[in-house]
C-alpha cells in the first residue's frame, strides 16, 4: 500500500491576516482584503486597487530579518509563513527529525523588478527613430544603477533556497512556477515525493506578489484585472453576473506535509490528510482556457480517482473562482460535468472574493482554508454575490458562511497557460 500523507502544520501571511486562525476567521466574517493600492502610485492605472498584505514585519517572526534586506516580499512572506508552519508542527529547531529527509517544494514567484531604475535606463538608451536600445549605454548604466544583491534576489530559486537554508531543510528542493496553479502543483508533487519514499516531510506552499508597477501593467494590458470604478471591496465577485476580472492579491501559504507513519511516531497533531491530486494540461491556447473545461474536468476526475472517492463524497469545493467572465463560467461547466446533477448539492465558494488572487500563492492559502473548513465545520462564503448569472447556477455559499460538517474537500487551481490542478483534503481517520 502506498504511503499516506497528512498535514501537520500550517502558516499564512495574507491580506486577511498573518496567521491561519486570523485568515480563516476573516473569511467567516465575510471580510474583503481589497483596498486602494498604497505600495505605489497607481492612481492613473486602469486598476487602482488590490488586496495587499497589511503591516507585515518579518522581525515579528525571525530574530535576524536584516539578513533578508535584499530579498523581495516573495521571500520575506515565505520565511514568515514557513516559520509559522514549522512552529505549528513542532518542528522549529527540532533535532528529532532527520533534516536530510525533510524537503521543500514551493510554488514561489519571482522577485520584483527594479522598475525605478530599469525604466529610466531604457529611457536614456532608447532611440525611438530606430526603435533600438543602445546596448553599450544600457550596460554601462545598468552595471552602475542596478543593485547586485537585489537583482540576485529576483532569481526564481532564491525563495526555496532561503527557506531551506534558514530552517535547515536538506531534503529534495523544488520550485515550480505555473502561474496561478503553482503552489497547488507544488503541494501535489511534494505529496508524491513523500508517497514515493524520497522524503518523510515536505514544507510546501507558495509565496508571491505581483502588486508592483510592471505586474499591474502586465495584467491590465491583458484586461484580466477588474477595472471597476465603484467600491474596491466589491470588485472581486466570482460567479456574479457583473464580474469583470480578478483583483490582485499577495501573500504566502505554507503547509507541512508528512508521511503518516512518521507523524504518528513523533506524536504530531494531524489536521487533515491529503488524499487526492490531479494534474492536467489544457493544451488549448495561452490566452484562454478550454471552453468546455476539458483540462479542468480531467484534473478534478484524476484527483477523485487518486483519492479513491466517488463524486458525492465531496462536501465542499473551494473553487479557483477568479471573478473573470471565462474562468467562472468554464469552472461551473466543469464541476457540473464531473459531479453531474449532484453538483447542485455541493457548496462551492471562492476565497478570491475576499482575498483577491494571490497568483502563485493562491492555491496554498486556499488549501489551508479547506483544511480549516474540515476542522471547524464551517464553510467560507463567496462575497459580493448579488446578481445571479444564469450560466453560473451552483450553490456558491453567497455572502455568509455556512455551518456544515465536511469530510472531503476539493480545491481547484487553474494556471494561465493551461496547467490545471485539483487537490483533495480529507478529515483524518485512522
Amino acid at each position, binding site marked *: 500500500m502506498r504511503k499516506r500523507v497528512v498535514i501537520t502544520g500550517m502558516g499564512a501571511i495574507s491580506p486577511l491576516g498573518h496567521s491561519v486562525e486570523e485568515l480563516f476567521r476573516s473569511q467567516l466574517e465575510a471580510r474583503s482584503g481589497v483596498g486602494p493600492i498604497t505600495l505605489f502610485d497607481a492612481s492613473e492605472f486602469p486598476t487602482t486597487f488590490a488586496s495587499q498584505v497589511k503591516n507585515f514585519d518579518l522581525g515579528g517572526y525571525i530574530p535576524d530579518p536584516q539578513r533578508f534586506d535584499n530579498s523581495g516580499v516573495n521571500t520575506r512572506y515565505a520565511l514568515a509563513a514557513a516559520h509559522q508552519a514549522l512552529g505549528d508542527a513542532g518542528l522549529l529547531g527540532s533535532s528529532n527529525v532527520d533534516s536530510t529527509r525533510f524537503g521543500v517544494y514551493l510554488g514561489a514567484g519571482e522577485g520584483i523588478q527594479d522598475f525605478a531604475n530599469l525604466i529610466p535606463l531604457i529611457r536614456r538608451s532608447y532611440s525611438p527613430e530606430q526603435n533600438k536600445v543602445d546596448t553599450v549605454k544600457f550596460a554601462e548604466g545598468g552595471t552602475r544603477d542596478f543593485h547586485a544583491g537585489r537583482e540576485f534576489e529576483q532569481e526564481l530559486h532564491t525563495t526555496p533556497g532561503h527557506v531551506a*537554508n534558514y530552517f535547515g531543510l536538506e531534503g529534495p528542493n523544488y520550485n515550480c512556477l505555473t502561474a496561478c496553479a503553482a503552489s497547488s502543483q507544488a503541494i501535489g508533487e511534494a505529496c508524491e515525493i513523500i508517497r514515493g519514499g524520497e522524503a518523510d516531510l515536505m514544507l510546501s506552499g507558495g509565496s508571491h506578489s505581483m502588486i508592483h508597477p510592471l505586474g499591474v501593467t502586465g495584467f491590465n494590458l491583458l484586461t484580466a484585472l477588474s477595472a471597476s470604478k465603484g467600491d474596491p471591496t466589491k470588485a472581486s465577485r466570482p460567479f456574479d453576473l457583473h464580474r469583470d476580472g480578478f483583483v490582485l492579491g499577495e501573500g504566502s501559504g505554507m503547509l507541512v506535509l508528512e508521511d503518516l507513519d512518521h507523524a504518528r511516531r513523533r506524536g504530531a497533531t494531524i489536521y487533515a490528510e491529503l488524499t487526492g491530486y490531479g494534474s492536467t494540461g489544457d493544451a488549448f491556447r495561452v490566452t484562454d482556457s478550454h471552453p468546455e473545461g476539458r483540462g479542468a474536468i480531467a484534473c478534478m476526475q484524476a484527483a477523485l480517482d487518486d483519492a479513491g472517492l466517488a463524486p458525492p463524497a465531496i462536501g465542499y469545493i473551494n473553487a479557483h473562482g477568479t471573478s473573470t467572465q471565462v474562468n467562472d463560467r468554464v469552472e461551473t461547466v466543469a464541476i457540473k460535468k464531473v459531479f453531474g446533477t449532484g453538483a447542485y448539492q455541493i457548496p462551492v465558494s471562492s476565497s478570491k472574493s475576499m482575498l483577491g488572487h494571490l497568483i502563485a500563492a493562491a492555491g496554498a492559502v486556499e488549501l489551508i482554508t479547506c483544511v480549516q473548513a474540515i476542522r471547524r465545520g464551517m464553510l467560507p462564503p463567496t462575497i459580493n454575490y448579488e446578481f445571479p448569472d444564469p450560466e453560473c447556477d451552483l450553490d456558491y455559499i453567497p455572502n455568509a458562511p455556512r455551518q456544515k460538517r465536511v469530510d472531503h474537500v476539493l480545491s481547484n487551481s487553474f494556471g494561465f497557460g493551461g496547467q490545471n490542478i485539483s487537490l483533495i483534503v480529507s478529515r483524518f481517520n485512522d
Partner: protein
Amino acid sequence: MSASSRRVVLTGIGVINPLGLNATAYWEGIARGQSVIKTLQAFDPAGMPSRIAGEIPTFDAKNFIDKKDRKSLRMMARAIQMAVSGAQLALDDAGVKKDQLDPTRFGVEFGAGLLPTELEELGHASLASSNGEPGDVDLKKWGAASLPCIPPLWMLKYLPNMLASHVSILHNAQGPNNTITESDVAGLLALGEAQRIIARNQADFFLVGGADSKINPLSFVRQCLFGNLSTRNDAPEKACRPFDRLRDGSVQGEGVAVLVLEELEHARRRGARIYAELVGFASTFDRNRSGRGLARVMRIALARAGITPDQVDHVGAHGLSSVRADPWEAQAIKEVFGESSRPVPVFAPKSYFGNLAAASGTSELAASILALMHRVVPPTLNYEEPDPACPIPVSRSAQPGTHPHVLKVGFTEMGQCAAVVCRRWDE
C-alpha cells in the same frame, strides 16, 4: 524513487546548442573537441566586464516549426522559441507518430529561468514617463500614457511556464504540465519529476527539457553584476576551464535540450529506438554549501540505481569553471568516488559552450548519453594545469568508454543539488 514496476527510458533527443543545431551536430561538435565560446555577437558588449559567450547566432525558430504554427512565435521570448524548436526535434528523433500517443497520457515538463523583457518593447513607455534620471519614473504618467504603448500580450511572452505551455499546445499534450524554476538544476529536477509521474502511472510519454538564453543586454548585465563570469575576453575559447588552476569564472551560453521519456512497454510497443534507461535520481539541499548535500545527492542517485561508484563510466560534472564552486564540487565527487577501485573520469561539458543555465542539465545529460552510445568519454577542454584544490580525475583527452552508466550532477549557488543516473540500453 518509488518501487514501481514501470521503467522509464529515453527515446528521443532534441538539442539546439552553440555546438550544433541537432543532436548529431551536437555530438560531432563534442567529438571535434573545440570550444565554441566566442566574443559576444548578439549585441555590442563594450562596457561589460565579460564580453564572451556560447551563442547560437543562426538560430531561427521558423526553421523548426510547422508553417501553420509560426504566427505564435511572436508571442514567444527567445527561450520559448528554443523550447518549442527543441521539442519538435526531440519528437522527430523519437520517430513517434501522433496517432501512437494518447494526448491525456502525454506530459510536458521544462526547466526555465527568468525571461527578460525585450527592452525595445518598453522604449516608448519609458519616453512617456521618465526623464532618464535613475529613480525617476512618474507613475501617474506611466499609468496614463506609458501603459497603453506596450503590446497587449507583453506579459505572456515572458512567463516561465510558457515554455511547457506552448509545447503542450503545439503537440496536444494534455497530461501533467509543469515548469521547474531552480536555476541551473531546473532541467535535472524536471527530469526526475517526469520520471516519478511516469512511474506512478499518470503518463506514458513525456517531453522534458530546459531552455534558456541570457544572451541579451538585461540578463547579461545582471549576470555581470552577480560577478562570477570569466573576464578572459582576449581568449574566449580558453575562458571556460573547469577544475583547471587558471580558471577565472563561468561563461554564459544559450540553448535547449529536450528529451523524450517514455514508459518502457509503451516504447517497445511502438518499436522505438531506446537510448538509455533513467535508473536513478536524487534531489537534495546543501546547507551553507558544506559539500555534504552534494555528496549525498550522488550517493542517493547511485543507491537508487543499485550501482557502486566503480560501475560508473564517467561523471558528468556541473563544472562551472568557477573559482569557488569547482573545488566544492570536486571535493564532493572525491568523497563519493575516492574509494572506487578505478579512477572514474570526470567530464565537464560547459568547457565547450558555457553555462546554459536552465538548459544545462538536459543539454549536458544529452552529451553524456551520446558519449555512452559512442563508447567514448570526451575530454574536458582547457584542463591544462590541475588544481590541487580539485583532486579528481578530470578527462583530458578522449578515452574509451568502459561502463554503461553515467552519473550527471548539477547544483546552484544557493545549494540546490540534483543527480541523475542513466544506463545505456544494450538490448
